[in-house]
């Protein structure tokens, strides 16, 4: 009696969870459903849940218009560059902090920690001024450079390098390997998981960054996806199928990246917030 009642309640809970997850996914599903319609069908009354007939004309219209492809390119180039440079800078210095002896190590680590208190948002004005003085406003360099410094990545990598048994480092030294070689041949392969995890969340964050590209780009051809999509609403006005097609295309790369690398993304967020490591 008690068991069947609790099984009934459990089933009810599962059903409620599934229903809520459907509600949560609804805005996305509705965007896809709208994007697959003709413009007339998108605003037709009474409401229809599914497109009939489904058409790709909105997607074709958005792609033919051209800007979106350019924004994809800008986002891909800048996000990849940001990811590679961030990981390389952080891994190199994390290795030095973890494995090498030098003066001022702890002071530097403390400075980084204190620096985390200062939000990037508070630095927009001097950062813009710096980029203006360097002549990099509205360029890839201008988008990339302020996003390559990640003390959190240094901390995470240092934490992982610290866990590598000291004997491995010593054995490699005895074998005559230099520090660069040891980093590349021993530490990087051993930490491949965390490098990938932090790499993927760095990429997603760079791809999604709105604020900085918004400040530093001045013309539509230099915009990244998050920025370019804000133009779509004005450009398409009441053409909702096209607006939703643009939104779906804009969200697709990061959604695919997440679905393919779900485990690594999860790991990345947990490591970066210190819940796992």
């Amino acid at each position, binding site marked *: 009696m008690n068991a069947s009642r609790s099984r009934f309640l459990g089933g009810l809970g599962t059903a409620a969870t599934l229903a809520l997850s459907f509600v949560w996914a609804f805005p996305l599903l509705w965007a896809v459903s709208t994007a697959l319609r003709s413009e007339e069908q998108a605003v037709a009354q009474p409401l229809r849940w599914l497109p009939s007939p489904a058409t790709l004309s909105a997607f074709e219209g958005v792609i033919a218009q051209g800007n979106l492809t350019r924004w994809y390119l800008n986002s891909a180039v800048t996000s990849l560059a940001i990811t590679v440079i961030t990981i390389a*800078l952080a891994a190199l210095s994390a290795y030095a902090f973890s494995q090498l002896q030098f003066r001022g190590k702890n002071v530097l680590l403390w400075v980084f920690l204190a620096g985390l208190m200062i939000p990037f948002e508070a630095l927009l004005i001097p950062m813009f001024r710096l980029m203006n003085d360097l002549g990099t406003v509205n360029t890839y360099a201008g988008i990339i450079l302020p996003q390559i410094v990640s003390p959190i990545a240094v901390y995470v990598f240092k934490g992982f390098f610290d866990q590598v048994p000291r004997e491995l480092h010593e054995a490699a030294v005895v074998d005559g390997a230099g520090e660069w070689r040891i980093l590349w041949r021993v530490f990087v392969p051993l930490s491949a998981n965390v490098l990938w995890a932090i790499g993927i969340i760095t990429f997603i964050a760079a791809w999604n960054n709105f604020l900085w590209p918004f400040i530093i780009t001045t013309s539509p051809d230099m915009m990244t996806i998050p920025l370019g999509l804000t133009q779509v609403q004005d450009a398409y006005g009441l053409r909702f199928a096209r607006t939703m097609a643009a939104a779906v295309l804009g969200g697709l790369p990061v959604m695919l990246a997440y679905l393919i690398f779900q485990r690594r993304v999860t790991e990345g967020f947990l490591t970066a917030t210190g819940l796992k490591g």
Partner: protein
Amino acid sequence: MRDTVSNAGPMSARVTRRGRARRSAALTAALMLAPFLLAYLLFFIFPVLRAAQFSVTDSSLTETGRYIGPSNYVRLVQDPDFWSSLKNTGYFALLTVIPVTALGLLVAIAVNRLILARNFVQALFFLPYVLPVSVVTLLWQWILNSSFGIVHALTGSDVAWFNTVSTAMPTVAVVTIWWTVGFNMLLFLAGLQNIPKEVYEAASLDGAQGLGLFRFITWPLLWPVTTLLLTLQLISSLKIFAQVYILTAGGPFNSTRVVLEYMYDTAFQNLDAGYASAIAVAFFVVILLVSLLQAALLSRRA
């Protein structure tokens, strides 16, 4: 290190060799640190110092102005627009921080007990979080469109959600909660999985069940994750800008103009970068105070 093992050679030669090894180790360390440190100096420390410097000048966006002492700060304290932007930011924090954390906990508990389709359901809740902000705003502008949106079609309501003083900020808050709850769920799920099954078994042997298990096991053992999330959410809610800028541009009647929006308008629209830098410094101080205060409050509970 190898030269300490070998006894060959006179003392002095060994010492120089070791000295050289140490110097080359220091050089290696310097070379490995240099790229990060240079970038850190140029793209972090330098802007930090300049933000402070600009805040006591009448700088424009591209020219450093004259030193004018603390007058930007005096102006700030007397500026009703600044205080109202601070109030609007606080209102947004109030509408989002606790709700999104609580909802994240609820969803995590619900997803955690699923056996079938667990990863799939988890992905559904998490997916919005990986979307760029402008995709999120496009979706919701369409759903809430007062003439053609689905909310209008289903309920007949023709409220202009983002254009009405009483609904603008709460709607921005709902959109933000939808967007970010997945992150909270993810961290809570990790916290739940860290609680050993044996603890629950022992507690149920002692007669605890249902809500009792939650009250005496789950809640206290999750507290570290809860405090972490409350802190992260509070800080990120104080930094709100993009959603507000895109959805309402601070309107209607400045009712959603948050601190960063005000700073942006002052610096990049009015080109008053000196005064905007004072706003930036104040913004930093607010974040610092709030996080210190919260850290103190939350650690006392634990």
